[in-house]
C-alpha cells in the first residue's frame, strides 16, 4: 500500500515539474518572439530613411519617457523595492535591467539580494552592469540620473539631491539576522558597561540601531524571482509590512513583467492592524 502511495506521489510531483518547465519554456519563447517581432516592425514604423543612431536614441528617449509616465499613472509606487533572486544561476544583465527600469519608473530605493551572497561578492560587476544598462536602455549620462551604490560599512558618498536620484543597495543574509545579533550584542555591551539599563531596550531602540546612519526606509515591496517560496533570510526585521510578490524568473524578465507587479502592488490595501 505504501509503495502505491509513493508511486502516486512521485507521479503527482512529476506532473508539477513538467507543468512548471512548460510554463517557463512558453514564457521565455513567447516573450522572445514578441521582442523579435517588435524589433522588426519598429524600424519600419520609424521610417527606413532615418539613420540607425537616431532611431536608437528616440527609442531610448521614448522608453524613458514612457517609464516615467507609467510610474505616474500608478496610485502608489513603492519607496523602496527589494529584488530577491532565489534562483541559483544569476544573470547580471537581467538584474541590471530591473534596477534601471525601477529607477526610470521613479522608485527611490532599490535593493538587490540573494541568499548565497553572490551580489555582495560581485558588487562591482553589478554596478558596472547597471551603469551599462542605464546607458543602453535609457541613454542617460550619469550626471543627470545618478545612482548611489551603498555597500555595508562604506561611507555614503556625497551626492547632490537631484529629483532623479536613486539609491541601489546590495544585500546579503549578513544584513538580516546577523545585523540583529550585532545590534543585540551592542545593547548587551552597553548594559554590561552600565551605560544602559534593561528599561532602555525596546522595539524603537532596536529599530534605530538597525537603521544606523542609512536612512533607508523599510521595503514596501519585494519582488521574489524564482520557484522557491521563501524570503531566504531577506531582512527579517525590515519586512514586517512588506508586500511579497512572486515572479517566475529573473531570466529574460521584461519591463511589462515588472510593471505588472507594480500595478498589483498599487492595488494592495494595508489596514495596519485596524
Amino acid at each position, binding site marked *: 500500500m*505504501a509503495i502505491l*502511495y*509513493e508511486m*502516486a*506521489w*512521485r507521479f*503527482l*510531483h512529476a506532473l*508539477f515539474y513538467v507543468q512548471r518547465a512548460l510554463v517557463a519554456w512558453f514564457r521565455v519563447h513567447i516573450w522572445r518572439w514578441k521582442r523579435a517581432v517588435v524589433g522588426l516592425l519598429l524600424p519600419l514604423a520609424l521610417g527606413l530613411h532615418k539613420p540607425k543612431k537616431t532611431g536608437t536614441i528616440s527609442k531610448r528617449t521614448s522608453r524613458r519617457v514612457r517609464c516615467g509616465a507609467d510610474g505616474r499613472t500608478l496610485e502608489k509606487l513603492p519607496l523602496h523595492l527589494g529584488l530577491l533572486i*532565489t534562483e541559483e544561476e544569476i544573470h547580471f544583465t537581467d538584474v541590471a535591467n530591473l534596477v534601471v527600469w525601477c529607477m526610470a519608473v521613479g522608485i527611490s530605493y532599490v535593493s538587490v539580494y540573494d*541568499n*548565497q551572497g553572490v551580489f555582495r561578492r560581485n558588487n562591482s560587476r553589478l554596478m558596472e552592469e547597471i551603469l551599462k544598462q542605464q546607458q543602453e536602455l535609457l541613454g542617460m549620462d550619469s550626471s543627470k540620473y545618478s545612482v548611489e551604490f551603498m555597500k555595508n560599512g562604506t561611507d555614503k558618498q556625497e551626492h547632490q539631491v537631484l529629483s532623479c536620484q536613486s539609491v541601489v543597495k546590495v544585500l546579503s*543574509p549578513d544584513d*538580516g*539576522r*546577523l545585523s*540583529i*545579533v550585532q*545590534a*543585540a*550584542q551592542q*545593547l*548587551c*555591551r552597553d*548594559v*554590561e558597561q552600565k551605560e*544602559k539599563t*534593561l528599561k532602555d*531596550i*525596546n*522595539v524603537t*531602540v*532596536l*529599530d534605530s540601531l538597525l537603521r544606523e546612519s542609512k536612512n533607508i526606509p523599510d521595503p514596501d515591496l519585494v519582488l521574489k524571482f524564482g*520557484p*522557491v*517560496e*521563501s*524570503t*531566504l*533570510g*531577506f531582512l*527579517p*526585521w525590515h*519586512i*514586517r*509590512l*512588506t*508586500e*511579497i*510578490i512572486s515572479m517566475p524568473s529573473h531570466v529574460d524578465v521584461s519591463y511589462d513583467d515588472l510593471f505588472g507587479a507594480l500595478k498589483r502592488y498599487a492595488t*494592495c490595501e*494595508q489596514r*495596519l*492592524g*485596524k
Partner: protein
Amino acid sequence: MSWIRERELSFLERLTANILKAGPMPKHVAFIMDGNRRFAQKAHVQRQEGHSQGFEKLAETLRWCLNLGIHEVTVYAFSIENFKRSKEEVDGLMELARQKFSRLLTEQENLEKHGVCIRVLGDLTLLPADLQQLIAKSVVATKAHNKCFLNVCFAYTSRYEIASAVKEMAWGVEQGLIKSSDVSEVLLSECLYSSNSPNPDLLIRTSGEVRLSDFLLWQTSYSCLVFQSVLWPEYSFWNLCEAVLQYQLSYQSLQKARDLHREGQALQQMEEDRSCVAELLQHRGNGKLVDSQSRQKELLNYIASREERVRCFLNALQHKRDTFFSDLSTSRQGNF
C-alpha cells in the same frame, strides 16, 4: 473537544493525505488566519460572527493537521496592532478568547488523552487581568503534554518578540550569567517566546494578502511561504493540501538554503570564539607568544565554559518564565 474538531476524514481526503505523506511533510505549520471580517461582510453577518466562525475553522484545521501528521501549529490570533480596532471589536475578541480558554479548562481529560500542549506567545500584560489568568491556567495545565502543540500568538508582534529576546539576554548579562560576547543567533532564538518550538516549515496566510504583518519574522526566514486567496472561515482541507504540496515542491531548495545558513552560523560562532580567545590570551600573555597547541586548548576550554554559561542562563530564563505563568495562574488579581 472544542479546540480540535472530532471528525474523521472522508475516503478521498484520506487517500490524498496518504499520497502527500509519501513525500516530506512539514512538522510545524504557522497560520495567519486572515479574512474573518471580509467573510462576515460577504455572508451578511456581524463581524463577531465572522471571528466566531474563524475559531471553528481553526478547530477543524487542527484536526486536519493531526490527520496529516503535522503535530505543531502556530496561529496569529491577535496582534498588538489589533488594539487599534474599535473598542467594540476588541472587546468582542477578548470575550471570544475568554469563552474559548474557559471551555478549554473544562476539557482537561480530552486534552490529556490527545496530549495537547497549549502555549500562548505575546505580551500578556496588555490583556485584561482575568483573561491573563485564564490563559496562564491553560498553559500550566497542558505544559506536560507532548503529543501535539498549539502555539497561540495573542497580543503579539514579531518585533516585540525579538526586542523582548534581546532584553532577556541583557538581563542575563546584568545578572552576570552570560557575557555580551555570548550573544549569538542561536542564543537569540532560544530567548524568543517560541524557543520551545522548531522554526515553522510552512507559513500559510489566507485572504489573498501577501505580507507577513509582523508575524514570526525571525523564525520564518527559511520557511515556505504560501499565500492563498481563500478567506479563513472558508478554508478547506484541499487548501491545506495545496499548501503542503507547495512546501514539497520547494523542499529541496529550502533544505539547501537552511544548510548553507547553518554552516555560515557555525563559522560565525567559531570566528567569534577565536577572537575572544585571542583577546583573552593577549590580556594574560604579557607579551609571551602562545604556541598553537596551547591556543587550541584554550579555545576548547573557552567554548566549554561559554556553553556552560549559556546552559545556566537558559535554565534561569525557563525558570523565570515558568514562574511567571504559575504565579499568574494562581494569583487572585493577575498582573498589571
